[in-house]
């Protein structure tokens, strides 16, 4: 008698299943919140219907759940996952190897969906859509590129140790590279250096993750491999933990810029309204409601399609198209 696990997600079983459902195949993503992103990718690769479904109601467990079934990935069961460190550390564990080798396992090629959805090109486009009178003008690309160049060497050293199978605490690494909150003032100028502390500690961080002298040639080869995968001193930020990137690097900047934007626009309202305090108050409510709800950054990111033109998304589409 066939075991449940043998036919659950098996190619032959799903082939019939898909015929009955009238679909081309299933795409299994980690959680509900990943469906929309992967639908955009899948639609750019395949014509026709794929049923995009998710592994677990608890999205944080989704990848773990899918890992148990990686070998079942097929044309009828495509797995679409965050790369995490699996793409850049293919020998870190057996799953990493399988994720990189099975053509029916799609991965983000940057750390996660967040790394693509908050690519500098997406942030810049969304910020430009947040507009009342004047646009937000800030060099997001160079801010992230600057951060990337500061953390690059430490990140490569950290990844090299992981690639060698050494168990490292990911949270501990990210704590070391956490920037200060950016301070944005008039004309969207940065008035502090959020990366100052990292810069002063960077030598210690690199020392912490240093490799043995005899590993030097391996390290150079690995570094070259990472460059080929798109991890450079300009893009390192997209290869660190995606939630850390979102919560500790991108969003603090975006929030500071939007806060300054609201302040600037409100000042204009005050000038327009003169001493009419009630009018100022009404206009302020209307203005902030518009900025927070109608043109909120989160909703703009959600509907933005530039993410599919980011280098990582284009690579996913090219690899599987």
């Amino acid at each position, binding site marked *: 008698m066939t*075991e*449940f696990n043998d*036919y659950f997600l098996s190619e032959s079983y799903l082939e019939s299943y898909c015929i009955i459902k009238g679909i081309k195949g299933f795409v299994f993503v980690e959680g509900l919140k990943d469906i929309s992103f992967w639908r955009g990718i899948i639609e750019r690769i395949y014509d026709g219907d794929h049923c995009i479904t998710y592994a677990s109601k608890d999205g944080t467990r989704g990848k773990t759940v899918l890992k148990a079934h990686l070998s079942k990935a097929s044309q009828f069961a495509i797995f679409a996952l965050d790369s995490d460190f699996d793409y850049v550390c293919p020998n870190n564990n057996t799953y990493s190897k399988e994720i990189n080798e099975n053509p029916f396992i799609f991965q983000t090629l940057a750390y996660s969906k967040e790394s693509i959805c908050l690519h500098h090109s997406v942030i810049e486009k969304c910020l430009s859509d947040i507009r009342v009178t004047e646009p937000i003008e800030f060099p997001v690309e160079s801010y992230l590129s600057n951060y990337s160049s500061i953390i690059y060497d430490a990140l490569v050293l950290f990844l090299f140790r992981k690639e060698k199978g050494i168990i490292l605490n990911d949270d501990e690494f990210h704590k070391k590279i956490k920037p200060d909150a950016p301070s944005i003032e008039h004309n969207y100028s940065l008035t502090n250096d959020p990366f100052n502390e990292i810069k002063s500690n960077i030598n210690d961080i690199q020392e912490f993750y240093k490799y043995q002298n005899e590993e030097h040639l391996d390290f150079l080869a690995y570094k070259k491999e990472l460059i080929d995968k798109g991890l450079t001193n300009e893009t390192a930020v997209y290869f660190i933990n995606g939630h850390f990137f979102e919560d500790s690097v991108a969003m603090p900047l975006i929030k500071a810029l939007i806060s300054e934007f609201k302040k600037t626009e409100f000042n204009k309202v005050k000038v327009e309204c003169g001493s009419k305090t009630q009018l100022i108050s009404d206009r302020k409510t209307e203005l902030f409601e518009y900025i927070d709800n109608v043109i909120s950054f989160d909703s703009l990111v959600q509907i933005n399609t530039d993410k599919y033109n980011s280098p990582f998304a284009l690579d996913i589409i090219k690899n599987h198209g």
Partner: protein
Amino acid sequence: MVTVEIKMNTFIDEIRANDLFGKKNIIWKLKSVNVLVGKNGSGKSTILRSINSLLKRDTNEDLKKSRVFNILLNNGISIKHTVNELNTDTDKLIASLSEISKSIRGTQSSSKQKNKIDRLIRDVLENKNSVRDIKISSIESTNDDVHEVINSELISTVNMNANSVMALIGSDGESKTILDMEISAESKKLKDIFNNSNESYLEIKKRLESVLNELFIESRKSIKINNGEIVIQWVDNNGYLTIPNLSSGERQLIYIMLKAANTSLEDTILLMDEPEISLHLSWQEKLIDSITQINPNCQLIIVTHSPAILMKGWMDSFVDIKNIETMADK
């Protein structure tokens, strides 16, 4: 982050069975939604029925298939069914029983007692070799009121499927299937909720209508619930249908959803044996979500052979029975 938490006050934390079929032990840690898979004859349905029987304090043959069957609740309460095999030396047993029999004298009731013991002595004498097969079962709990705080409902789709075609002639001369009558009974319960608590009823009605319409739109039907009564219409021409007009799969689905709705006012363990039978794949995929939408206060324990049940976000909810069993000590 979406988390699946058990919202009930009382729920099953763990199931333990010792010597199931005299050969294996089971330790099964439960979550809010639990799907048990495995080969035929591996004991899945036996476990399901044993849970139901034990929660209802009803000793049955399924419970006797394990030497010990234990349900551990989250509040520390344990309900245990034990089968005690008669392990005594038969000669000593007969001697003891004879002593007891001799010592009984007097009243009419003690005479009855004496007769019973004498019969048992004769049985033991006649079946000396098989006396070890005599099993005495008992249920014990660390809290005798437990059945009052946790409700249990078993839906066996195999039986339901048979009931959906087995027609009986009612006193009114109309031919009805057993399933139709069961649906009527559940509808009546819903009406009782309507009569007793309008607030609870409205909430249940809202959830039930929403779920049923989402499911039945696939067969172009709409469902309304008026005062507890289910009203079915064709979407395209508004023509009315009655429950017996529906397919057996549709009636089974209505029955399952009514059960889920009617048990939503109290913590319930909803046990389902092969609910996939007669259901299209898309309904199988939506089954768990539909039940949990109608009744967020239930713990689901499902036995199935169908992967479709797991396809919409429940891949982490299944366990193969072979992964929760170990060989019993000989």
